[in-house]
């Protein structure tokens, strides 16, 4: 047993750090540090192009598709270092979500058509899963796809499409067989957002931002060749994808960065002649969350180590998702507690409201990607065998 990175892993980490030091544009780093999303599309695209030029555009992909071929441990190191350096997170919808599905279940033609464009940030992807009546019970989704010759005709809507306002493409779960059992009648489609009949309406969120959208489909015609895999087997592909999504959600590097900010901020606030970092009441809260994050970091490494031997992520990913999101939400709570009544003045575009806006926004963490209650169901069923 060895909890430390071995010499090769340390060398790799140093390489990543050096790259981030020299190649991450200062203006992007600065905006990320301030949670400034005003140019988020450009920032993500530009950073992806830089990564791609280096050959690091897709840390999780095999070499044959233009990926790095890195081990799980290397991917973990890379993501942590990127987060710690305030790099923008890569757009997960393309690289981490639809791409693995296309690689695993897509046709050779789909792979050639879509994967290189994802890698080079030429296509911006979003996800079309949830509907108004289908959240946790995703398999009940109703958006219709009726076959007409070599096309599907789509009618219905999708909600919570994160950053869908910038999207060139959307991957959707649609109902192709209304008479089958819910999980059996779903197909997985790739849809060009420029197709006539698609309309995007941003949803204003509690923090005042427009991060998610509602997308309507009125008689949208999609070639059958844009279906991934077989008709009515979309649920299988979706489950494969959800496993991927959860493993990626823990985000240890991001949590560490935010915890460090919390400590730095606390060290700068004086109360009774000492900083809030040294204040027993507030300091103990920080100590508690740092301890839990330390444990999660080891747990995450254990899962990666175990996964390296297997193919798909196991139900342990649910555990990482729950504890990771709880820890991040706790950190964001403490950032607001640190501000105290100063958090009342709310100016979303101002640095002073960064913590408050983050607190509001990050309530999403325990809701998206399969709510934490759904994750507990998964743990009970898969791990505990209940």
């Amino acid at each position, binding site marked *: *047993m060895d909890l430390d990175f071995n010499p090769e892993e340390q060398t790799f980490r140093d390489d990543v750090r050096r790259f981030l030091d020299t190649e991450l544009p200062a203006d992007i780093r600065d905006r990320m540090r301030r949670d400034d999303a005003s140019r988020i599309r450009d920032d993500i695209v530009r950073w992806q192009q830089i990564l791609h030029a280096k050959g690091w555009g897709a840390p999780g992909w095999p070499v044959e598709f233009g990926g790095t071929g890195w081990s799980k*441990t290397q991917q973990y190191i890379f993501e942590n270092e990127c987060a710690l350096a305030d790099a923008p997170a890569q757009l997960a919808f393309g690289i981490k979500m639809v791409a693995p599905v296309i690689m695993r279940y897509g046709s050779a033609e789909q792979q050639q058509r879509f994967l290189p464009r994802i890698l080079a940030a030429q296509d911006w992807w979003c996800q079309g899963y949830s509907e108004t009546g289908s959240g946790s019970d995703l398999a009940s989704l109703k958006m219709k796809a009726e076959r007409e010759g070599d096309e599907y005709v789509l009618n219905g809507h999708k909600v919570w499409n994160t950053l869908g306002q910038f999207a060139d493409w959307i991957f959707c779960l649609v109902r192709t067989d209304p008479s089958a059992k819910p999980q059996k009648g779903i197909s997985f489609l790739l849809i060009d957002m420029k197709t006539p009949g698609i309309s995007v309406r941003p949803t204003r969120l509690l923090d005042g931002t427009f991060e998610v959208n509602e997308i309507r489909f009125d008689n949208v015609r999609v070639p059958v060749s844009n279906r991934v895999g077989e008709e009515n087997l979309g649920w299988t592909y979706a489950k494969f994808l959800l496993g991927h999504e959860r493993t990626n959600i823990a985000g240890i590097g991001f949590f560490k960065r935010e915890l460090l900010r919390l400590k*730095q901020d*606390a060290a700068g606030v004086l109360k009774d002649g000492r900083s809030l970092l040294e204040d027993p009441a507030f300091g103990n809260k920080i100590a508690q969350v740092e301890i839990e994050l330390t444990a999660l970091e080891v747990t995450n490494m254990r899962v990666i180590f175990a996964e390296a031997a297997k193919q798909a992520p196991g139900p342990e990913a649910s555990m990482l998702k729950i504890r990771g999101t709880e820890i991040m939400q706790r950190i964001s709570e403490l950032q607001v507690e640190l501000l105290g009544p100063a958090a009342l003045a709310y100016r979303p575009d101002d640095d002073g409201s960064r913590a408050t806006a983050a607190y509001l926004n990050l309530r999403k963490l325990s809701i998206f990607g399969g709510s934490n209650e759904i994750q507990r*169901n998964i743990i009970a069923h898969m791990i505990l065998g*209940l």
Partner: protein
Amino acid sequence: MDFSFTDEQQMLLDTTRRFIAEGYSFEHRNRVRASAEGWSREVWAQLAELGLLAINIPEEDGGIGAGPVGTLLVGNAIGEGMLLEPFWSSAVVATHAIVSLGSAEQKSEWLPRLAGGETIAVLAHDEASTRFDAMTIETRATPRGEGWELSGRKSAVYHAPAADLLLVSARVGEEWGLFAVPADASGVMLSAYATVDEQRAGDVVFEKVALAAGSRLGGDARLSLQAVLDYGLAALCAEAFGAMDRILAATISYSRSRVQFGAPIGSFQALQHRMAEMLMHLEQARSMSYLAASRCTDPDPATRSAALSAAKTLMGQAARYIGQQAVQLHGGMGMTDELDVSHYFKRLLAFELRCGTTDQHLEKYRRQLRAA
């Protein structure tokens, strides 16, 4: 990064587990518990026979030298079996203290006897007068003739009634010293009791105990004693993990077989989520037991201390949550002496209180927080 165990380490775990499965059933443990001494000399001899009392003795001193990871795995099994014998006190802490601080002569005198189970040694360090703050002691040793005179009080010394040899920490002027005191020395007074987790312990008073010159182990023992305490804490975490693992397994199994309202209670979502939560506490605790084992021999005291305080805090909280919920989910049966659940529960309570409480370690961890 590697979470695998070597064949030797795995064999230690298998050996200990097999011994418990074959020779230390819950029923057997009940008989040992009810005996006058409260632990079994026969079992102790078997542990010696299996080599388990020698795992913390380096190979060059005739032991197995299994180190913290071997101790972690053996500790897991001991926690699973809730052994009542002085394994942690003698074969981990006291043995490690003699290995770390003892002279060649002291080692050759005691280590073979500790490995063979003929001598039981315990570390007497904590004092109630300082509210069990491990870094404060009031017991004092003063030079007297060629040797020393020792006076003070040690509290809640696990397995003191079983000990032949007490390793006593004491202030020596500005220094700390560690002294080997025969349990039957004149001026040593033991008040023995059973602990809440059914082990045996005692408060020990040292009243002008005369000690020979060769009874001191090493020089200023402050730093090396801290290292011994850290090593012991990691091993105690390993035992606690074993107990948590078993009490959760018992709870899951019970929830599958206990039928109410016409269905196994494990089919109810409220209880499923509770057990999912217990499992997450357990897995985080497992990670911390690994961290404790990995860092407990780190040469840097600050690194060691931060890791161990983090581990004890999180594992103490996990022990409380898992223990309480296990009793709750067993309903009335969880309250009985008959099931092993209540005994694991008490073992976990003792874990929370030993080697620094959860609050003490959280506080210790907070004091080293840095904004960098």
